[in-house]
């Protein structure tokens, strides 16, 4: 145990003295801190898409100069073949800050849109039919549906007039305000979705980034030829466990500092951010705890595999060659879990939540968003940590086998043959 601690201490010092490690940790943490405090100094409402105060004021005071300026900021083309639009106030209400260009033909509408002289164009064929023209449609473009609302409203007004009905009265009944008090007694998937999404990406990045770092640190002892002195000085298992766990501590510390700065910075400035990042950063303690347990387990599991892979090659530039297969597995798990985020009680996630190669993200997602029994969590955790121990011991054997095998990377078939002989 003392020798293991000696290796651990030595390896940790290696990380903590590494300039890249220090600069990355401090630099990114500072950057995040600055970003979190940014709303105190800069108006970021446009960045967040919450800049609607001006529009509201324009609607309230449509005759002011500023309103005119803003109204001129967006141009829409319209060609009303059937003279359906009789009340232009509807256009102003649903398309604020927009000036309308009345075109004389369909071609003119197309030309205006094509030349970007109009943001979009509408060709009205009848009270129930129109064409919508836009050059490049953005993800959140809802102009077409807003225009549908206008035509529906006009139809409704016409119907009421024809049948002697009062539009306002009808609307007050139809759109009577209903008070809703939502009480989620279990898990709110809608609320948990985004931070689950973010944490799945985070654990994936940690495993890939730091796994490679650990593999390189093992390989470097072969490339600098110190491995023979080391394996004859102490038990190779201490060396591998010391290296991997030091890598884990260093990487978790780095992530912890960056993530901690982000969360603390946001907690401090949540109001300034208008609570817009709550969906990512307001993570319940229990979810964070589950994420830590499974995330750490998954990281350790793959860290030992990366450590063993590092022992198979003798040059650091060859690490990527041998770790390709492992990275493929991690990627498949990553995409499988992300694609199943809306079906967390499905069979794919259920199976994945028990496999050590995938439970680190699948079980965490089930806990955060789905139905899962306590025994399932415990069983998955035991399987994961048991596998870590097994992989660690296996990794130490591979590490020992890799000693003095310089030259081309050792193939997995050779490894299995060796382990069979053992």
């Amino acid at each position, binding site marked *: 145990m003392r*020798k293991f601690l*000696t*290796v651990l201490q*030595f390896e940790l010092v*290696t990380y903590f003295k590494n300039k890249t490690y220090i600069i990355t940790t401090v630099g990114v943490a500072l950057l995040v801190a600055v970003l979190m405090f940014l709303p105190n100094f800069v108006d970021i409402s446009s960045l967040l898409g919450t800049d609607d105060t001006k529009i509201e004021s324009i609607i309230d005071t449509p005759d002011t100069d500023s309103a005119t300026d803003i109204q001129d900021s967006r141009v829409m083309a319209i060609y009303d073949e059937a003279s359906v639009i009789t009340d232009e106030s509807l256009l102003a209400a649903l398309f604020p800050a927009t000036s309308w260009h009345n075109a004389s033909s369909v071609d003119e509408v197309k030309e205006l849109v094509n030349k970007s002289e109009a943001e979009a164009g509408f060709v009205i064929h009848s009270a129930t039919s129109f064409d919508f023209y836009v050059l490049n449609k953005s993800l959140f473009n809802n102009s077409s549906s807003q225009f549908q609302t206008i035509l529906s409203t006009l139809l409704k007004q016409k119907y009421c007039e024809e049948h002697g009905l009062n539009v306002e009265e009808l609307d007050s009944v139809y759109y009577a305000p209903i008070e809703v008090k939502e009480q989620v007694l279990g898990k709110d998937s809608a609320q948990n979705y985004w931070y689950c999404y973010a944490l799945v990406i985070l654990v994936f990045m940690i495993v890939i980034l730091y796994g490679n770092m650990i593999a390189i640190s093992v390989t470097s*002892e072969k490339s600098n030829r110190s491995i023979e002195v080391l394996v004859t000085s*102490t038990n190779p298992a201490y060396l591998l466990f010391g290296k991997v766990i030091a890598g884990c501590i260093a990487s978790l510390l780095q992530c912890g500092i960056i993530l901690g700065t982000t969360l603390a910075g946001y907690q401090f400035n949540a109001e300034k951010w208008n609570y817009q990042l709550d969906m990512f950063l307001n993570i319940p303690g229990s979810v964070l705890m589950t994420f830590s347990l499974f995330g750490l387990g998954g990281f350790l599991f793959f860290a030992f595999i990366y450590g063993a892979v590092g022992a198979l090659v003798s040059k650091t530039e060859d690490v990527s060659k041998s770790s390709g297969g492992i990275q493929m597995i991690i990627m498949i798990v990553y995409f499988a879990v992300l694609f199943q985020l809306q079906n967390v009680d499905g069979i794919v996630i259920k199976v994945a939540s028990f496999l050590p190669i995938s439970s680190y993200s699948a079980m965490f997602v089930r806990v955060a968003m789905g139905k899962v029994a306590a025994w399932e969590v415990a069983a998955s955790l035991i399987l994961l940590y048991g596998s870590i121990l097994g992989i660690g011991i296996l990794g130490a054997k591979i590490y020992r086998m890799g000693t003095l095998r310089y030259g081309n990377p050792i193939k997995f078939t050779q490894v299995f043959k060796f382990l069979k002989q053992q």
Partner: protein
Amino acid sequence: MKFEVKQLYKSFGEKEILHGVSFALESGTAMGLLGRNGAGKTTTIRILMDVFRADKGEILLDGKPFISRNHQIGYLPEERGLYPKRTVMEQMIYLAKLRGTSSSEAKKNSDYWLERLEITQYAGKKLETLSKGNQQKVQLASTLVCNPDIVILDEPFSGLDPVNSQILQDVVKELIADNRLVIFSSHQMSYVEEFCESIAIINFGEVVLSGAIKEIKKDFGKNQLVLSAENYDTAALEAKCKQELSAYMIPMNAKRDYLILELTPGTTRNQLLEALLKTDISVEHFETYKPSLNDIFVAKVGNEK
């Protein structure tokens, strides 16, 4: 302590590399493992250090099975390497602690060996900033930092300049005087001759000659003499001897200044001398041949394939 290696066999794949290597030595002595490149010296040493497992054979220390991890061993491998980005002192303390030395002892020993090898000024420097020779000295200091009872050095003199070689020779002599057990392999016979009591010459995975150097030299030089003449050069002297003295001796080797010859069976030195005096050879040098280790080495493994 008595260290014995008995009948070590080792194969890599289908190829047998060691075919029954045996030797023995005791504390307070040094033994040189000699052999050409690829003879099996490093493989033998790696088996001693448990880097490889022998297929057959045993290693005993005082009659009991030897397990390297249970003893303080200073091992200098043929493939040198330490941490280039760490300071000399950091890695010395680390290696000492890995071998079970306490922190305070590790620091004390590191200071001692850095001073002894005259590299104290580099203690706080990163290894990569040192010259190759000084890196070699740091490697040696790291080998000895755990205060080992057994010292195994694989090609310790390679890469050292004459001054540093002398320092290493002195260190090895001190280790022997301090009753340590020293095994080392080398190509440089002069160093082996300097402080080894015994040798084992390995050729193609077999020990072809082993024992105390004095005895080996005595046996090897038995019935062999050195002869030179004032009036003949070596080539002419060899021809003359073959022509007139073939009943008494056989010329073995013609060196630049003298001829090495062997007495024919039953001939004494006096009889040869008498016969020589009857010829026109003006004897300049006539003495018992004392072979160098190099001569013995070349004779034993030089021409074998």
